[in-house]
């Protein structure tokens, strides 16, 4: 039986303390109700736990965490998955800005749209390859300064029909990792020096693997997603600004 808590009248520092105490005692499953603006939930938790959140968690959900699997029935605010190391955040709504900032492992699956600078400074090392999948559209600076990992942008479940798939400066300064986009983006929207490429067989395998898990999370049909062609954006050099500051 998961432990069910109504946290609507608690300050986030109390909530995090309570959660940490229960995790210490061996509790492994949580259901949190009345979540609204509580910051840093599960931040820094290093444990294999599961949690369902109902409401809108505050800034930096799951920051620095290693292991928890968090499912949010609602939207998430800015900085979700900030520097997260392992684990997973599944968001059944939309997400704010700088989601997955400097993320170094784990997964973030978002059903809807995301804000600006998502995946900024993402990185990868050895077997740690962070993945962000966005079901809706993304604001400007998606994957800015990306150093590793995978971002997949679907543009399918958006509340903004008038907006482009991805905003301006897509992948600006990226020097590692891959951004996959379902459909096309204007080349003028790409960061300096970047170009869209067609997928190869290896890409398709990677995409299918991650998208299958994404579809399982939200009960979606994989073949529907794969109906349209993807492009990929990769860095053109691993030191895009190598000559900018060194004369």
């Amino acid at each position, binding site marked *: 039986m998961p432990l069910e808590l109504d946290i609507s009248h608690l300050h986030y520092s109390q909530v995090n303390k309570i959660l940490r105490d229960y995790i210490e005692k061996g509790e492994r499953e949580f259901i949190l109700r009345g979540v609204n603006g509580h*910051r840093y939930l599960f931040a820094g938790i290093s444990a294999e736990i599961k949690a369902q959140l109902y409401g809108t968690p*505050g800034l930096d959900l799951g920051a620095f965490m290693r292991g928890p699997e968090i499912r949010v029935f609602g939207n998430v605010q800015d900085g979700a998955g900030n520097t997260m190391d392992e684990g997973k955040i599944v968001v059944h709504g939309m997400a704010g800005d700088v989601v997955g900032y400097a993320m170094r492992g784990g997964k973030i699956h978002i059903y809807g749209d995301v804000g600006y600078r998502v995946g900024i400074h993402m990185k990868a090392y050895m077997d740690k390859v962070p993945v962000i999948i966005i079901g809706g559209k993304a604001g400007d600076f998606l994957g800015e300064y990306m150093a590793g990992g995978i971002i997949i942008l679907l543009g399918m479940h958006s509340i*903004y029909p008038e907006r482009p798939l991805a905003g*301006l400066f897509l992948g600006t300064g990226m020097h590692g990792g891959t951004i996959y986009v379902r459909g096309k983006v204007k080349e*003028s929207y790409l960061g300096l020096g970047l170009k869209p490429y067609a997928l190869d067989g290896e890409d398709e395998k990677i995409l299918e693997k991650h998208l299958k898990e994404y579809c399982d999370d939200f009960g979606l049909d994989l073949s529907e997603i794969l109906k349209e062609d993807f492009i990929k954006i990769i860095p053109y050099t691993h030191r895009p600004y190598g000559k900018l500051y060194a004369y």
Partner: protein
Amino acid sequence: MWNLTLRAKEISGCGIAGIIHKKGELIPGEMILKAICCQYERGNGLGAGFAAYGIYPDLAEYYALHVMAQNRQALEKVEEFLQKNTFLNFQEPIPTKRVKTIKNPPLFKRYFVKPKLEEEEAEFCNLTAEDDRMVQLVMEINEKIEGAYVISSGKNMGVFKGVGFPDEIAEFFRIDEYKAFIWTAHNRFPTNTPGWWGGAHPFTILDWSIVHNGEISSYGTNRRYLELFGYKCTLLTDTEVVAYILDLLIRKHGLPLELACKAMAPPFWIEIDEMPEEERELYTALRILYGGAVLNGPFAILFAYNGGLVGLNDRVKLRPLVAASKGDLYFMASEEAAIRAICPDPEKIWAPKAGEPVIIEMEEGVIPNQKSYLKPRPVEVREDALRIGYIPPSLFSGK
């Protein structure tokens, strides 16, 4: 107490919130308080404030001057000045309450006035001349009367602000006793200028009020630009320039609201290059003419006037802003949670695009002195137009 040396600007990570009822129904003060307190950690106790529209319906034809004064003598000087330059209808201390954590607050008094005009101006009896005179008088008090500041000067509206957390300032000014059709609120986290009573948000001129999260790094440029038109920045916080830019661009130069916002947060040249010809010409003219009004640096602002509430981000969205609606109520805040704290089930909730204003105007004819700035208006001051050039009205056709 206010022996301040002039410093340039502020860097901050504040919280903002705003509510408007499109049909002009009154919203209790508790509601905005709840929204801003949901973002408690966005401030550090060094400033909070509220702007309320529709709170003086019986005196709606008079400019409501909220005056903050260091001592009795400063207040007397303001009163002497007002006796000489205005018709004073009514005055009273702004009701306050003792709050333990608020030490040595300044004095607060409100005056309901109409400016005395020169004979030839009075002949036309136009509101423009009254507004212009009022701006001059406010500038004069703020600049010349030591220890006294006009913190708001619009009709049927008022600003309540000071040093403290939002709940403390609300208690001090008894915000729960007011009802308004537009509210904005601010929770301040200053890091670069003194946290003093005059530096708290909202900032105002006439019925414009602004709350701001961020840092306007173009403050120096903006300030010098505004000085060309007689606006004097005296409150030591960058946000002040936004109030005067709005007044200049919209009220004086007649720019439609959206275009004024685009002057402050202009599209990138790479975006302008891709626009259809007519639009390209307009935005090129805008960027050339209003270079001095561009706000650089990170910001999310909410501004209000008698008739509308507007949210605007800097063009690369370096500060958060969320908007939502339910029926005739519209909400904007730094965080979605702040909106859900007062409206758990909005019909629509969205994240505005960088540099694209969210403009919510009230339905026509629901409040006294109602203003609408959606359409371009005739340029009122020709000598300004000559000084800087102006945008040919033909370019507005697409807007």
